[in-house]
């Protein structure tokens, strides 16, 4: 967790234009193994755009990404996933019509060969899902339950489980508690803490100071698409961070 070791993920000088709109300008970010970085900022500050650049969904107009010290160019979410970089989207990005297990393995389903046919291995999906949910202490009735039958907190848990099912090294979470009932927030924050313990680097975007001050080690603020301020949690306060969000130092 020391800042002298190499960061797991580092973004340097990220700039992103949408037509004539500048969403991000020269933004830098880094996260270490086992560390949680909080990213705060007002609506439109560029938080979500930055995360989509990191996950390979958007290509930056300028700037570069370094993963474990090596420069990487991400063409699609598949590329970032292959590096061990996973994203939990604000709108959860789950297919409600599919069961939990098939959501967790969506796009990376285990298969078995039947002659020349490559068929989905449903037993393996179920087995791996149950083991993984157990590891994260996520309780659901069954891995066969459809996601649309779950509560908001359970869906968030499935989304996080999905992001960590393939030995993720960095997990990026966009507003992980925004849509949750209060009693479910704690569970999700516990989940983030247990991820940190396994050496995963976590980036949390949140409006909620409670989240930031419960799980993060460091916090950075974006303002109008630029780096505005950054500090370790022990060197700042809620009031100061709220000030950053509004553009005051």
């Amino acid at each position: 967790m020391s800042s002298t070791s190499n960061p797991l993920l580092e973004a340097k000088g990220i700039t992103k234009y949408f037509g004539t709109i500048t969403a991000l300008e020269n933004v830098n970010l880094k996260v270490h193994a086992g560390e949680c970085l909080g990213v705060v900022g007002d609506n439109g500050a560029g938080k979500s755009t930055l995360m989509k650049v990191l996950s390979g969904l958007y290509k930056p107009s300028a700037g570069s990404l370094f993963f474990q010290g090596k420069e990487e160019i991400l063409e699609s979410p598949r590329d970032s996933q292959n590096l061990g970089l996973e994203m939990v989207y604000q709108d959860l990005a789950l297919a409600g019509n599919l069961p939990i297990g098939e959501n967790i393995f969506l796009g990376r389903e285990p298969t078995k060969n039947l002659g020349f046919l490559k068929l989905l291995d449903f037993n393996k999906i179920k087995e791996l899902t149950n083991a993984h949910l157990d590891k994260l202490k996520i309780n659901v009735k069954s891995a066969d339950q459809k996601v649309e039958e779950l509560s908001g907190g359970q869906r968030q848990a499935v989304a996080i489980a999905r992001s960590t099912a393939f030995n993720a090294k960095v997990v990026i979470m966009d507003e992980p508690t925004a849509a949750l009932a209060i009693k479910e927030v704690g569970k999700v924050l516990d989940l983030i803490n247990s991820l940190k313990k396994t050496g995963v680097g976590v980036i949390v975007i949140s409006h909620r100071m409670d989240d930031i001050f419960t799980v993060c080690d460091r916090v950075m603020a974006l303002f109008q698409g630029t780096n505005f301020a950054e500090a370790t949690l022990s060197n700042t306060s809620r009031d100061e961070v709220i000030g950053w969000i509004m553009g005051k130092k």
Partner: protein
Amino acid sequence: MEDKEKKIESLHLKLIPYFEKYGILLLLVLMILVMHILQPDVFLSWRNVTNVFKQISWQSMLALGVFMVIVTAGIDLSVGSIMMLSLMILAVVAKAGAPWFIVVLTPLIAGFLCGLFNGLGITLLRMPHPFIMTLGTLYIFRGAGNLISGGTPISGFTDEVRYLGHGRIDLQWLGLEKSQYLPVSLVLIAIVYIIFWIFLNKSKTGKWIYAIGGNPNAARASGINVNKILIIVYSLCGFLSGIGALILAGRTDSGYPNAGLQSELDAIAACIIGGASFFGGRGTVLGVFAGVMIMGILRNGLNLMDVSSFWQQVLIGSIIVLAVYIDVLRRDIGTRK
């Protein structure tokens, strides 16, 4: 008290998936029973049953294609026109004297290419909705079919070309009478439906088709190439319409300008009756088959009872509305809101 509620809830959770999967079959069995009671001598006779299967043979291909498209939350209005164009190409190629194995392949290739055209249009031209692209090609393909045939019927194909639509599998070796044969088209339906059942339920691509219908953003974020899958789906839909054309060529021994007119609506109706959701991600191959059968049996039964075709239209329309309403009720119980 709470225990009891929990029991009922878990019973619901256990029963609903079965009801969702097989409920439509209940309706089908019910219809068969009613028809049998109304027409005890004729309805379940060998001759009539094979007739029903022959009548639904090409519709079942269009319905299966449209079903896959509907699972992705899309729509294909052009399947009737694809079938007509493929049929006309087959007729022209057959009249030109091509050998039968080439004639048989032409509608399949033509149908596939028409579907590919739809898929490319929807994804590359970024049409706001597949409705628009396929509405356009509904006119384009039928117009093209009339252009190449001159708008007149072309008749007379060889037995090889007609085999899939007209062929009979003799069952006399089983001790049955000569009139008790198996239509080749019925065997074809079974084979095609089983292949597509495996494809949609057991393959990665099939799973992704359902995922795209459930949430295209989730599919995209999972690294699935959504456009590629959509192009595959529309191409397969066209291919199945091409198989429909080959069956129709066998059944009617003719390529004619009105072939498949409005059959896209029949195909959509069969999917909806069979439990496919217009919002995508829902429905089963078995359900589509049941939907096609229900429409076929309804038409056949009403014909047997000499009911006017106007009443048939009213009844089919009513069944669509009723089937979807039952679905709405079922979802009220099944899904958390």
